[in-house]
């Protein structure tokens, strides 16, 4: 079966200086929802725009549905749907007029009515784009991508800046598209979005893939499924490494005076931890345990948080 999206050793250098993408390879199967997760400036947008055929890579190969942008640009445009990061559509057109305009570019578009219902925009069909809320505008942006009846959908940060309800609405739309057999490639810096929506992920940092797999895989690979966080009163905390010798601990790190332990079996770690605290004659200021998340994976890999300002 031909891969939906494939790229090998992609590189992009701006003005011969800034290296936005540095040897990035991906293979996305048809029907998959694949996520590029990474902080701002990691090279996600550059990567997705190269895959969308909007940017020329400095070097590397791209193949979409088994075809290359260089030779099959026109056919490929018919087969993919794109939502860019922040497109401000014409404010003086109505929702319906906007969808019809985009539909007119394709030889076989879906009917406007169908797209309006699928994106829950029926009520707003005669409203001017300028009068829509942020969530509605973003749904319209996705509608202009889905009107193509695409086989591959590219979404660059589809839910950035949206309220929780609008985000969930968009997730449902993306899932429905995937359910009908579509392939999705999206970029995000929201780990919850990546965890809930994506079958597989590539974590991107400094223009490279630093880890790849299903969300569960990636967390598994971290070592433990659990995170134990604690802080002590006074300065009995000491070096993070000193806590790594506790039973069932895979790694330890100090985050602003809080020790975070990646733990396989908390019921073995916690009694030993309490004993240690006693021995140091210190007192616990806080202690909690939680499921490990992609954020922990990212911090473990890079030593930084996803959403550092």
């Amino acid at each position: 079966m031909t891969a939906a999206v494939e790229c090998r050793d992609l590189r992009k250098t701006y003005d011969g200086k800034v290296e936005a993408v540095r040897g990035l390879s991906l293979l996305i199967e048809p029907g998959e929802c694949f996520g590029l997760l990474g902080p701002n400036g990691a090279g996600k947008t550059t990567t997705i725009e190269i895959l969308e055929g909007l940017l020329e890579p400095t070097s590397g190969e791209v193949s979409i549905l088994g075809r290359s942008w260089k030779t099959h640009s026109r056919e490929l445009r018919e087969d993919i749907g794109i939502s860019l990061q922040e497109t401000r559509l014409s404010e003086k057109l109505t929702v319906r007029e906007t969808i019809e305009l985009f539909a007119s570019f394709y030889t076989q578009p879906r009917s406007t009515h169908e797209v309006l219902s699928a994106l829950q925009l029926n009520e707003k069909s005669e409203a001017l784009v300028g009068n829509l809320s942020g969530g509605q505008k973003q749904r319209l942006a996705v509608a202009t991508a889905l009107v193509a009846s695409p086989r591959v959908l590219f979404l660059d940060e589809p839910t950035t800046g949206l309220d929780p309800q609008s985000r969930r609405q968009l997730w449902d739309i993306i899932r429905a598209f995937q359910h009908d057999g579509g392939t999705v490639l999206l970029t995000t810096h929201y780990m919850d979005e990546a965890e809930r929506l994506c079958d597989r992920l590539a974590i991107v940092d400094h223009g490279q893939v630093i880890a790849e797999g299903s969300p569960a895989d990636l967390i598994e690979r971290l070592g433990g499924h659990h995170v134990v966080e604690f802080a002590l009163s006074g300065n009995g905390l000491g070096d993070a490494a000193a806590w790594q010798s506790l039973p069932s601990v895979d790694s330890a790190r100090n985050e602003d005076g809080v020790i975070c332990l990646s733990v396989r079996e908390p019921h073995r770690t916690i009694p030993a931890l309490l004993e240690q605290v006693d021995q140091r004659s210190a007192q616990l200021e806080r202690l909690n345990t939680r499921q490990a998340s992609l954020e922990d994976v990212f911090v473990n890999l890079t030593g930084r948080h996803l959403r550092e300002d």
Partner: protein
Amino acid sequence: MTVAQQTPSRHESQKPMLAPRNGRWSGFRHLLGARMLELKREKEVVFWVFVFPLLLALGLGFAFRNKPADRTTIAILAGPNAAHILELVQSSPQKHAIRAEIVDDFQAAKGLRLGKYDLIVEPIASDKVQYHYDPARPESVQSHIEVDDALETAAGRKDVLTTSVIVSSEPGSRYIDFLIPGLLGMNLMNSGMWGIGFALVDMRQRKLLKRFVATPMRRSDFLMALASSRLILMVIEVALLLGFGILMFHMRVLGSFSTIILLGALGAISFGGLGLLTASRAQKIESVSGLINIVMMPMWILSGVFFSYERFPATVQTFIKLLPLTALNDALRATILEGSSLVSQTGRISVLVAWGAVSFLLALRWFRWT
């Protein structure tokens, strides 16, 4: 016909593989339609493209109108002989050109100061008057000559020489006749540069251009739709301004309407090309606004919109005649006011075509969709 064909399965009907729903020109038609809707809904566009030039024509047309036989207003100082002087003025051949009032010293001095009166006549005796006026004011100098002439004639002076005058204020030679074709040219330049240049950079800044080229849209369709919207607007602009000139100022149009429209189209396309060139790289509307103003400013002044470029030195005129707006204005004036044909204006038309073609070719080389 098989049973399967009669009852297509639900799955098939979801993804119809019939003949293409959209033809070759579907994109172009929708782009043009969307552009026209946007323009219609943009109140500022309607004002600047249609209302503003009419207001300009109205304002300038009235300010520089040929006043019906200039009337001068004078004050006669109240006194025993005032009534007699007033009678002389009113019985003179120039009585329609002079409005005289009898007022006291204070009123007369104030009126002269404020420009209400051009001249004060002070009767000293029944056959002796003294004039008061400021020789720096041309209308006062004029008034003095006229009133003096009127009084002398009314009092019985005999003219030695017989003279007569032929007045020229025929439609075609007035300021408004000069102005309307100039405004038309300027308007075509303004709306061509802004309508194309500004619109494109705005779309680029909104990432709308990038979004469009991410679809199978033909880029040539997009540019053609933009040009077509300009041509449609051009016809309305020409019709409005000329219609206004004909109705309000009884302008006489000697050239054929089709020739004027052809010239208008040439101007619209030429300035559209220039607009495309200014917009080819700019990423922000602020930078393209500056660029457009830099391109247009010299032509507002030099190209004979409000006054003839004959006032500039001859050496500069050679250069001025190579500007696209000069060529357009000259061609429009020759056609509208003198009824010249297109064939007789190949020079001007070549200038317009050259500007349009060169800027369009450069723009295609440099234009950035993203």
